[in-house]
């Protein structure tokens, strides 16, 4: 749900990073946080357990500059990936404008990817959205690992509707900004249609 503030001339959009546990959602946000200049970002908030597993969400506000005289602010959220945090995931999807699905390229995690994608589809429906129509981008993370499944194979299993798909290594930033840019573009393009 985009928040268009004519009084303050601001557009606020919400983007959610989704995916199975330990796939690198928080790492994506951390990289964006580290590489954005201080004026353009707020605090990175991480509600995590003592072992750095996301408990509720991570949150990063980002100012991208102006479009047609309107300040564009993106609020980036991650969900907790672990299966048993489903109730929290549903809450975070409320009011979402764009979704990034971060898939773990390791062969052993393919089943978890598929399960998480099904979970996303289901939870979006519960909030009244459709994966088919929402602004949506796919990222294959951890491409540097030796056990990575081929990108073609992952595309066949995970690509849902021909959405923009990126190969990434979030720990060194590869593909992180490409992914963000793609989803931001889809969200802003969607505004045009309204």
């Amino acid at each position, binding site marked *: *749900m*985009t*928040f*268009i*503030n*004519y*009084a*303050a001339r601001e557009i*606020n959009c*919400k983007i959610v990073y989704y995916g199975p546990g330990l796939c690198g959602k928080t790492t994506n946000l951390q990289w964006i946080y580290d590489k954005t*200049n201080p004026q353009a970002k*707020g*605090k990175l*908030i991480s*509600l995590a357990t003592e072992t750095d597993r996301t408990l*509720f*969400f991570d*949150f990063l*506000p980002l100012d*991208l*500059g102006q*479009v*047609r*005289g*309107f300040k*564009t602010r993106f*609020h980036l*959220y991650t969900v907790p990936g672990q299966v048993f945090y489903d*109730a*929290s995931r*549903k*809450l*975070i999807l*409320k*009011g979402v404008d764009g979704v990034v699905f971060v898939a773990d390229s390791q062969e052993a995690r393919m089943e978890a990817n598929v399960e998480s994608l099904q979970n996303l589809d289901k939870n979006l429906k519960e*909030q*009244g*959205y459709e994966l088919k129509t929402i602004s949506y981008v796919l990222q294959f993370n951890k491409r540097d690992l030796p056990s990575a499944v081929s990108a073609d194979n992952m595309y066949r299993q995970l690509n849902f509707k021909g959405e923009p798909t990126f190969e990434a290594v979030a720990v060194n930033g590869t593909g992180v*900004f490409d992914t963000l*840019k793609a989803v*931001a*573009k889809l969200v*802003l*393009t969607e*505004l*045009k*249609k*309204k």
Partner: protein
Amino acid sequence: MASPDLVMYEEEYQQIQDTLQRLQVDSNAKIVFLVDKNGQQIAVHGDMRGVDATSLASLTAGNVAATDGLAKLIGEKEFSILFHEGERDNIHISLVAQRVILVVIFDDRSSLGLVRLRVKKASQELERTFEQLMKKAEADRGNLANRFDSPFAEITDEDIDSLFSE
């Protein structure tokens, strides 16, 4: 779309600011602010120095969402008021018109009773403002794309690319 976009216009924004200002003075509060249920900050009044408003907004919304989830689990519709008591400052959180969250931060110069009383009055005002806002946005929605002052109808790929040029 699950819920329509929230649109804010100058007139209603001013009304909201006025209501918040009155509430801050009447309740002797430090900060009064209004957040959308999705964590977008709508308006604020008070001394925000040293307070990260954006984080405050998103955590408040997260807090309300989690409490909402708890309510549904035990068969309640919602918990309309949350109160956090600290050593120095306290936070009073309440839902307005089922879609925005009113947050009041106060210390011992005020009291929970006073805050509750003033919040009730301010909520009624805010409810009216939001009703008016929704009607206006509804009327506008159909032709927003056609309005010549709509900033989004003509967004180009270059505009979007330029956001990422740095």
